[in-house]
């Protein structure tokens, strides 16, 4: 059952179209990566989902309702939209006390979430003294304060060091293990690839693909590079076998859709000498880059 539904969502800022007729759904209990390069329209979409930005067209609902109509919204949805959304002169504990009062949770919960994000020792320090990574952790503590069933996290790994990224990954895995629904945005697929069940990829405000991570993985094809004095001949032979062969130099061919063994055997059958043959693995990240590079880019997005 879908708990987040985005339908034909569009946002224009004057002549600028930030989100363009975007539709996708997030099922309950799944962890979904919301991916796209910087300026793809991710943040604007999440802000429309949370009732902070008014859509120009379309709808975005959580549990079938616009965010502003949810009863006890902080208990349904926890969100991290920007790491610096805290008054710098206030201590971390006081920042959370205010949110605890807003969410009507006991102040003992403040200490629990501070411990969860590893900020107990910094609870009495002013937020203005925090590093960016510590602010990200405070943002996550704020989102988790009311123990929500749905989490919407906008680039939570930004500013975290490698240890922090690993900590975040473990935290997200733990939250997913508890059956929560998580929509986490990132401009780097690798940050969330080990955590998410599926991905929604957008570029320039348009949906590029919504698929499971497994489906995306199948798009990742190895590339075989060959050096041969009969490159044109090899290219035509490979094309006849439905492989994609590109002549990148007079003596070099790059092939996708065929393995090095298949290319080697075919060349032997056709008496084409091979001087050199190598295989480059194409990772998910390259697939992501390819997908977002080929998407339509009519107008810039936020």
């Amino acid at each position, binding site marked *: 059952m879908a708990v987040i539904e985005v339908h034909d969502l569009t946002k224009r800022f004057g002549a600028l179209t930030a989100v363009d007729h975007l539709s996708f759904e997030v099922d309950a209990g799944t962890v979904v990566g919301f991916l796209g390069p910087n300026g793809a329209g991710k943040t604007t979409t999440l802000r429309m989902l949370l009732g902070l930005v008014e859509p120009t067209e379309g709808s975005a609902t959580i549990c079938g309702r616009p965010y502003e109509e949810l009863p006890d919204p902080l208990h349904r949805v926890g969100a991290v939209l920007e790491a610096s959304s805290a008054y710098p002169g206030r201590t971390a504990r006081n920042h959370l006390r205010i949110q605890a*009062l807003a969410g009507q949770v006991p102040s003992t919960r403040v200490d629990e979430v501070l411990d969860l994000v590893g900020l107990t020792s910094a609870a009495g320090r002013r937020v203005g003294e925090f590093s960016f990574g510590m602010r990200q952790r405070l943002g996550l503590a704020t989102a988790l304060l009311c123990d929500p069933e749905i989490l919407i996290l906008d680039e939570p790994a930004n500013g975290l060091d490698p240890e922090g990224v690993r900590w975040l990954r473990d935290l997200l895995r733990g939250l997913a293990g508890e059956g929560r629904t998580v929509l986490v945005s990132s401009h780097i697929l690798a940050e969330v690839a080990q955590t998410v069940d599926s991905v929604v990829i957008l570029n320039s405000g348009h949906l590029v693909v919504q698929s499971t991570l497994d489906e995306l993985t199948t798009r990742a094809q190895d590339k075989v590079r060959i050096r041969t004095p009969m490159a044109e001949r090899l290219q035509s032979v490979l094309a006849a076998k439905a492989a994609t062969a590109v002549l990148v130099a007079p003596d070099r061919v790059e092939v996708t859709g065929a393995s090095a063994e298949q290319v080697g055997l075919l060349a032997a059958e056709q008496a084409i000498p091979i001087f050199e043959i190598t295989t480059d693995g194409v990772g998910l990240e390259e697939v992501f880059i390819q997908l977002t590079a080929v998407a339509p880019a009519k107008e810039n997005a936020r």
Partner: protein
Amino acid sequence: MIRLVRIEWLKLRTMRTGFGLLATSAALTALFASLEASRAGNGKNGVAPLFTASGLGTVTTVTGWSMIFAAVLGVIVSSGEFRHYTATLTYLGTPDRRRVLVAKGMAAAGAGVIFGLVSALIATGVGLIFVAGHGYHVALGSGTLVAHIAGAVVGAALFGAMGVGIGSLLRSQLAGVIGVFVWALVIESIIGGLFTSVRPYLPYTAATTLAGIKLGGAAFGPAHGVSGGSPLPFAAAAALVLGVAAVLHVITVRTTLRRDVT
């Protein structure tokens, strides 16, 4: 609504700026009340001797600063939500933005009560100390002194709420704070000095007359020494200031409050 006001009050209590503004307001009140008291009766600045009700009243009603700084606090608590991006969290917790605005206005009014009370007690204390120092009889009755203190409290509370309207409308802390000072100390002073018939209806002037300040008494510019016109009755002056605050809130609800929080 009570919970929302408690949230806003907790925000106020946990930010240093509020205490800084209160301290500044108190210090300026003490300074200007002491200056007025030390110059009273010397015949140069027009302040009557301290043994007269007029002279003592001039000193004990130096409470205009509390109203200006209460308004500045209101501007800061409302526009600060956008400066520090905390509006996002505030509206996630309470998506009904009108209720947030009203709660902020009530919390700022509560802070204004403290600003007005502290300022009035300091000004009254300075006046009584100078009177005692000269060995004069206290020319003002306790009822009058209490009425002036109550007026300062009401004026500062209403200006706190008004500041929230200004800050929410402009969303710019700098523009809001400068606007409050320029309006109260420059624009009202010029208008009040030029058009004495209009002066009682100017919001800062009306708020100061609540506290027993003479028309133009809180002005720095041309209006300070200009006599003429009668202050509005207490209820009318309070209604006028409350009305201006309410109009600012309504304009905010119909304009900037609906804007996207980006």
